[in-house]
């Protein structure tokens, strides 16, 4: 449940998306129009790992982020 996600988890997840899914800090008009790049990247990550695609940080997604892994980005490059 979302209620178990705290601020520290949020920043961990943001850093994860920066490291492995190329989340960049957005500012200016796109942000003002409610477009949330972190949610888009989160969905990309959830799709890659076959998780439920919610765009929100749930416990399953956070558990996957905490698993030991390779440090190379997961950004899909064309086959």
């Amino acid at each position, binding site marked *: 449940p979302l209620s178990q996600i705290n601020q520290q988890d949020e920043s961990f997840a943001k850093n994860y998306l920066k490291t492995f899914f190329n989340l960049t800090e957005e500012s200016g008009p796109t942000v003002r129009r409610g477009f949330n790049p972190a949610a888009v990247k989160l969905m990309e990550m959830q799709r890659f790992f076959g*998780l439920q695609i919610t765009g929100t940080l749930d416990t399953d997604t956070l558990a996957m982020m905490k698993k030991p892994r390779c440090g190379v980005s997961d950004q899909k490059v064309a086959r």
Partner: protein
Amino acid sequence: FSTFGGFKWEKNSLTYRIENYTPDMSAAEVDDSIERALQVWAQVTPLRFTRIYNGIADIMISFSRQAHGDGYPFDGPGGTLAHAFAPSTGIGGDAHFDDDEDFTFSSNRGYVLFLVAAHEFGHSLGLSHSDDPGALMYPIYSFSNPETFVLPQDDVNGIQSLYGANEDPVEPRPTAPPTPNACDSTMTLDAVATLRGEMLFFKDSFFWRSYPQSATPQQTRITNFWPNAPVNIDAAYESQQSDRVLLFKGRQVWAFSGYDLVSGYPKPLSSLGLPKTTKKVDAALYDVASRKTLFFVGSNYYSYDEAKETMDEGFPKRVDETFSGMSGKVTAAFQYRGFTYVYSGPYMFEYSLRSGRLFRVLRNSYFLRC
């Protein structure tokens, strides 16, 4: 599989150099692990690797902690275990291992260096990450026995897309089974169980987790979830009486409470009261209403009282006496939202357990959202 957009070495003879060692393993163990990790790729391509002891090699291998000069600092124990760079001059091809991790030669008490290195060398040769959970190039570490390791087909396809196949006459090697596909209509599931409202569908060394809100079931390795669980199991069920999941393989049963193997397990099937002659259980299902578990063995089934932990009198009974129309071999069974599902080959039969009435015959993939 994925590649780094086609970055590859333009030669088949590559050099590697081990710059330093981790204190976790002997130098000989590190040497052997690195060499075998490179051979994983050499066996299926024309690539050949030669070790050098000084100067600059194509693949420079080192162990370091935190910031180590490449702009990608490591993060202490856990998290990132290693990283490597795509083929190119300079740092290209190099592999760095996080020495805050506990690397081991073969046990799953730490991270098996051979497995981590084989993955990183995939990057060194031009592969990016695969979203196939059975692939070596899947980004999440998972333990498998290095002595029986076989390069999965997804990785073979990937590396051969860059370098072609190994032309040398070598004796044929075992090939890893492909990662099972949930939507393969001919697939026979090994077992099905529930787990606190989720459904688990077991096949080979994987299972799919499906829960009511999920759009797609999540595929994962059984050993990622339960490190000391068997694979290619025969049966599974969730005992809501003891809040455990039990897995069956051959003459043994494993019990897990959460992620943990309950002490004393695995136990022989006879510990449940099954006859000592029982070679395997084909399927198991827990009936919520009666708090009894049914064990399907061949054309018969037994009834186990979870509260008393004893087998009920009057069993075994014939399956087709209770489950009308179930004449084939039972391959899996579970109960979900009051309906009892008994699998036989690629089909799933939906029953009322109380009346034995057959409602529908469905395909195995019914709950797998194909």
